[in-house]
């Protein structure tokens, strides 16, 4: 079932103003405006505004010229989206799950649920009554596929119902999947009989019912294809050649297959999640650190129970401390791996509470787990096992990143690049590895790389010859052995055309110190003056 709320923004505004349709503030022409790069543009208008000539998408200045009395209010797309999500949760009263259909619709799965309301027609009447009671203008339709329901809700008759076959036959076909192959004429998914029925029923709808973007609709209009029935006369191959885009928004063939049920269309249902929350109201406001530590330890123990009950572990925790004098302090903690160990949580928070101002005292402490992950129950440590066996890796990393900052504890991972300093990237220690290419065996890379290559002065026999001697950090190094050059060209697909290549040399000096140095550019490459030398790496 698809529900379309064509006047969502205006209905929300009217609810906020608490006036009936066409009365009070709604009686005068009004437009909700959005700021765009070109100026103020009308996002939605009420009935009086539409009658006065304000059309959504029009510039406000143009609308004012047509109707000088037009009142304006700000539009609120974020609020509309949040309202739609709450509405999707509410719409689950008609089906087991509901998805938001941006920007102004909902999709509810009512498969096998219509009989609870006395049939599909009564179900739709119930939906209409529910929406009207909330002051929302809505159009709705029921169809075997989400695409068909979407099309009927927007372009079909009022409360259209397209039932392919009776629920009993649907149930029979679904319950005996093994017989499908044996029965003639029955293919995967919906039967061909079914998609023919859908295409017949929807043949008169405009092509806009395919949920396409503006450019694809323009192409279809220029081709003279105005109705869905027009598309059936054209071979699949021709459509496939004309529309090669893989995104369904721009490909009528994909949309048509989704509409007819030949291609699956997964929808993302909205599910309500509540964050585990524990709190302590304190009879006597606390002003001292030891008491606060005690309260935090109690909260962590409560949180452990709350998380254990749902089989989850916390990844992010937020501690709120409300003061008597009307101020509040918040501390957020992120953990490297899901955990619910009370002692660990309390210890990590203790490191973050040093700078909390207690003022006249803290009267309410609340701990919320804003991000949780599933975590199975484990055998607890027996006796003093934790003291003897040491900590786990996740606990160690949590402690380090709470004290030193998350940016200080990282792990190098390979990155596909020729430039040495770009060939490794840093990520959080417990994140999984991305797939990587094997290292070239003949590349001998240094053990350590300086963060910034340091300029060196080099003596060499010929401009392109081996370096003989160099000075680095006020020390003179006589080159005894050298291997190279290894030429690493700039990445032309990323860097500017004026970037210079690098010739790398592995060198060993007279006392055995091994370095990685490079010459930046070649003499006479037309990309700057004489090439400079840098020292970038230190070999083992």
């Amino acid at each position, binding site marked *: 079932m698809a529900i379309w709320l064509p006047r969502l923004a205006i209905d929300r505004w009217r609810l906020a103003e608490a006036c009936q349709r066409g009365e009070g503030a709604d009686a005068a022409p009004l437009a909700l405006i959005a700021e765009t790069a070109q100026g103020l543009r009308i996002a939605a208008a009420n009935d009086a505004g539409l009658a006065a000539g304000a059309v959504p998408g029009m510039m406000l200045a143009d609308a004012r010229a047509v109707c000088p009395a037009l009142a304006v209010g700000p539009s609120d797309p974020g609020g509309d989206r949040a309202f739609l999500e709450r509405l999707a949760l509410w719409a689950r009263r008609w089906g087991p799950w509901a998805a938001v259909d941006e920007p102004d619709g909902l999709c509810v799965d009512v498969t096998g649920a219509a009989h609870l309301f006395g049939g599909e027609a009564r179900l739709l009447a119930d939906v209409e009554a529910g929406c009207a009671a909330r002051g929302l203008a809505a159009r709705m339709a029921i169809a075997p596929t989400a695409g068909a329901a979407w099309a009927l809700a927007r372009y079909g008759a009022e409360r259209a119902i397209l039932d392919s076959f009776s629920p009993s036959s649907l149930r029979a076909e679904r319950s005996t999947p093994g017989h499908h192959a044996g029965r003639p004429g029955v293919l995967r998914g919906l039967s061909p009989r079914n998609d023919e029925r859908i295409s017949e029923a929807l043949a008169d709808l405009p092509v806009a019912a395919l949920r396409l973007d503006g450019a694809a609709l323009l192409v279809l209009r220029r081709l003279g294809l105005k109705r869905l029935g027009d598309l059936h006369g054209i071979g699949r191959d021709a459509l496939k050649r004309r529309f090669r885009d893989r995104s369904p928004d721009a490909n009528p063939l994909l949309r048509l297959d989704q509409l007819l049920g030949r291609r699956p269309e997964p929808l993302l249902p909205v599910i309500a999640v509540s964050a585990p929350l524990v709190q302590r109201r304190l009879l006597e406001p606390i002003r001292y650190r030891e008491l606060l530590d005690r309260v935090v330890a109690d909260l962590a123990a409560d949180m452990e129970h709350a998380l254990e009950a749902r089989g989850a572990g916390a990844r992010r925790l937020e501690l709120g401390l409300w003061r008597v004098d009307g101020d509040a302090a918040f501390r957020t903690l992120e953990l490297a791996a899901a955990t619910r160990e009370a002692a660990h949580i309390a210890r990590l928070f203790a490191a973050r509470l040093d700078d909390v101002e207690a003022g006249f005292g803290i009267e309410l402490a609340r701990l919320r787990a804003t991000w949780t992950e599933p975590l199975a129950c484990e055998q607890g440590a027996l006796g003093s096992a934790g003291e003897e066996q040491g900590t786990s890796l996740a606990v160690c990393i949590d402690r*380090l990143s709470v004290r030193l900052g998350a940016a200080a504890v*990282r792990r190098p*991972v390979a990155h596909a690049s020729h430039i040495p300093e770009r060939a490794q990237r*840093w990520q959080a220690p417990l994140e999984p590895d991305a797939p990587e290419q094997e290292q070239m065996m003949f590349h001998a890379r*240094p053990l350590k790389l300086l963060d910034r290559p340091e300029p060196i002065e080099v003596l060499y026999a010929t401009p392109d010859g081996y370096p003989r001697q160099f000075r680095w950090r006020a*020390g003179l190094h006589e080159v005894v052995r050298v291997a190279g050059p290894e030429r690493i060209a700039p990445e032309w697909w990323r860097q500017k055309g004026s970037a210079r290549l690098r010739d790398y040399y592995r060198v060993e000096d007279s006392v*055995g*110190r091994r370095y990685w140095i490079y010459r930046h550019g070649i003499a006479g490459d037309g990309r700057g003056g004489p090439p400079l030398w840098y020292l970038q790496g230190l070999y*083992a």
Partner: protein
Amino acid sequence: MDLSAFPPVGALLSPFTPAPRWQPGRVGARHSEVFASAEEASGAAAALALWVDGRRAAEGAALEERPWLWVQDAAALRRSGRPYRPGLPAALRRGLIHVAARKAEDALFALEEGVRCRDLAGVIGEIAGNPRALDFTASRRLSLAAERHGVPLFLVRLDAARDLSSARMRWQVRAAMSPPARWNPQAPGAPAWHAELFRARGHVPGEWILTDDEHGLDASQHPGAPDHGDLAAAAGDRSLAAR
């Protein structure tokens, strides 16, 4: 005369035999210090080689890929660079977790948390100079934690004076000329270091040329060092008390 009634000479001498000389292929100490210059990577490289050598002795030739920690303070990071993954031995690349501490205190905290963690295969620390926070007490804490939890700790001291420390083995390392590379005699070969063990519990001090090739760590007697035989080595700054 039946000589079997007498104890063998070795048993008589045993309380007086000097401690054995260090050699590669044995499980090393839990807490070692490596002194080196910040202008070369020898300190960290020798620490890695000694650690891998000790792990091979304990676990067998094929190393298990386990996480390990490399802690650097800001001065060490600035002066001697950051670990570079493609340059690490292949078995160690995946497990590296790098900690960039701002101060020496933070680095010591990270080292101690590291040796307390049972999942880590080892901890390498790099601290430049002789910070006030790294005194004998701090070093003793690290030794005790490392020995209690069995996680080997190598602390690389860059450009540092030999101060008081409770490390079980203390090395002074500098780069040495590498053996000629196999295919190109002009090129630098396998890494080699001149390593001096100047203070150790259970070993006599000595000097070696360490070479780390694909077969593992190899130690040869330093040609310049006189063979003292059973004589006590020069006192240096080691304790004169009987060991």
